[in-house]
């Protein structure tokens, strides 16, 4: 009894001339993931011709849990604890889109304080997600130092999240009608300001080591080029779209929460290659830190942090009037949207989430990988910022 791959299978493979296929023929098949450092939980089947990718077939679905089915079986408020698992690095985004959609169907006016807290939480999630992205990108191109630093700075935000919400990764914090808990106190706000300043002071280090590095330029310049028409037809959103010269940002174009009152810029580059995508992300990180500073200067408005509604007494049987709504926010990956349909009962009739990676993680990736070198595959993957749970759900 052999416990490694069965011997008969090995014999079979040899018989069918599959042994040494990769070297004997000019094209070979490379299974890129899911057990691979670059593509976590995501598989790409690469048909390689030497060092070049001839054809790429994306094979997602390792993370499919049937969220949309499960959400139909749980009450409105319980769904928060479920749907936030769609986007793991930035779990506040699914919470917020779902809450916004439910707020719109019910017709709630969310209190100002809750709006402020939600905006802060979203921006913190964005900053921590950028940190995570820097880590991922650093690891892909072999600059582990920047990655390690970024992950360490992200821990400061995690600590603040923990104090605010009680959870490190999954916060279950934004609920329809407001937020679940109030801000812990002024000390937390001071800590947040310190953290923002700290990360801001460390941006210089990242510039020197990663964003202004000769080899980073070499690795990313001219790799995975998209043009504007292609990006629009493929519904590429977020930093990837802004890197081809379309200044589309949900926070500006379909403003929600406090964003109309905030002063920030939408960085746009027009080259459309990996370098442009990297630099757009770097400028956005700066803008997000600036937004957080402004929010902190504004200070939390007084008032309740949850909408006052007698219907909320019996939460599990809380009924939502019939109707449908689509809400979307700007996440670091792109335009994250949710379509919620209610039939008047206490469970949503249908929740459909639009993950940004659905558009740039499948067809776009397959197109961009065509003709890329093997070494460019992780760079393209990471500069598109593909998040497999978005696709699988």
């Amino acid at each position, binding site marked *: 009894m*052999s*416990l*490694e791959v069965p011997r008969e299978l090995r014999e079979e493979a040899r018989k069918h001339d599959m*042994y*040494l296929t*990769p*070297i004997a023929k000019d094209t*070979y*098949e*490379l299974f890129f993931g899911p057990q*691979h*450092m*670059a593509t976590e939980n995501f598989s790409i089947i690469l048909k*390689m011709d030497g*060092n070049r990718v001839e054809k790429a077939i994306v094979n997602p679905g390792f993370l499919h849990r049937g969220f949309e089915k499960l959400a139909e079986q749980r009450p409105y408020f319980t769904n928060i604890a479920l749907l936030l698992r769609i986007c793991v690095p930035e779990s506040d985004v699914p919470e917020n889109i779902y809450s916004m959609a439910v707020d719109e169907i019910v017709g709630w006016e969310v209190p100002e304080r809750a709006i402020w807290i939600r905006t802060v939480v979203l921006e913190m999630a964005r900053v921590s997600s950028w940190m995570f992205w820097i880590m991922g990108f*650093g*690891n*892909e*191109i*072999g*600059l*582990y*130092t920047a990655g*390690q*630093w970024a992950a*360490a700075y992200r821990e400061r935000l995690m600590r603040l999240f923990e104090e605010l919400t009680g959870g490190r990764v999954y916060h279950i914090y934004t609920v329809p009608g407001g937020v679940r808990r109030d801000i812990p106190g002024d000390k937390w706000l001071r800590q947040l300001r310190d953290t923002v300043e700290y990360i801001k002071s460390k941006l210089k280090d990242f510039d020197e*080591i*990663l964003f202004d*590095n000769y*080899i*980073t330029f*070499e*690795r990313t310049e001219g790799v995975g080029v998209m043009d504007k028409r292609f990006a629009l037809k493929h519904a590429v959103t977020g930093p990837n779209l802004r890197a081809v010269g379309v200044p589309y940002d949900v926070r500006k174009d379909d403003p929600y929460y406090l964003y109309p009152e905030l002063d920030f810029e939408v960085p746009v580059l027009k080259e459309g290659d990996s370098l442009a995508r990297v630099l757009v992300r770097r400028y956005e990180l700066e803008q997000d830190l600036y937004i957080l500073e402004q929010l902190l200067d504004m200070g939390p408005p007084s008032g309740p942090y949850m909408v006052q509604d007698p219907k909320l007494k019996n939460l599990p049987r809380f009924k939502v009037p019939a109707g449908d709504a689509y809400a979307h926010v700007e996440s670091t990956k792109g335009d994250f949207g949710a379509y919620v349909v209610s039939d008047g009962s206490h469970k949503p009739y249908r929740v459909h989430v639009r993950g940004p990676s659905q558009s740039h993680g499948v067809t776009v990736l397959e197109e961009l990988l065509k003709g890329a*070198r*093997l*070494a*460019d*595959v*992780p760079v393209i993957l990471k500069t598109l910022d593909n998040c497999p749970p978005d696709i699988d759900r």
Partner: protein
Amino acid sequence: MFEWKLALEAIGMVIYATFMGFIFMGIERKAMARIQRRVGPPIYQPIIDTLKLLGKKESVSHGFIYDFGPVFALGASIAALLFIPLANFQLFSSNADLIVVAYLLEVPMLGIMLGAMSSGNPYSAVGVQRGLLTMVAMQLPYGLALIAIAQYWGTFKLNSIVALQQLHGWSITVPALLLAFIVFDIVFQAMLGLEPFDIITAPAEISMGPMVEYGGKHAALLFTQHAVQLFAETAFFAVLFLGGASNLLELLIKQIAVLFIAIFIASIYPRFTIDQAAKFFWKWPTILGIIAVILAGW
């Protein structure tokens, strides 16, 4: 007539080199961790790793060449070590041991390639292609740096190079050889398999490349080989450019200095792709190398 003394010296030297090589690997990991603001593993961690790998059961082999590859690599590394003058020990010596050592240090790569090729894993195959191309690319500046050395000191004998350096000052104090030093240092990153030239094992691209199929005792052999190789390469570097050493402690200090340069470079640069690396090697280091050769022969 069997020379007991020589045999004992050889064994002692190999054991010392292996041990110090492991410690060097530990220093490398520890220093990297400190740069990355971590505590890092204990300095003797590679020894534990190798012990553990030796204690693993391995039921997979891909044939004789697969098993032979690591042994071949280890043998070549040890052979290279025996030709390098380590302080006052130099077990074998010939009139052109500079060339012998320079090319024995390249042979282990071929051994690993041989074994990896026979595993049939496509990632190994890609890693092997990259490894061979890196070797071809770095030969030119590497050769130029060595020629500059040989030309300036007028000998291919490592012993004489050390003696001359102790007489006339270290190689790096000579302007021509300073350029050769820079060239050699760039090549050195590739020889150690560190960034920006860790193209062979790029974990995020081809998940360890040639090593992907090696596990258990094979991996332990490769680890040992890497340790010996690390020791031999740093010693070679110290002998060529830092004036050699009169005792093992002095040599050790010089080796660690060399190692730290490599670590610092590795921790602030990302990885090249293979074609960029080849282009890079054939551009700046080659130009510098040619200038060094011309200056050395002046």
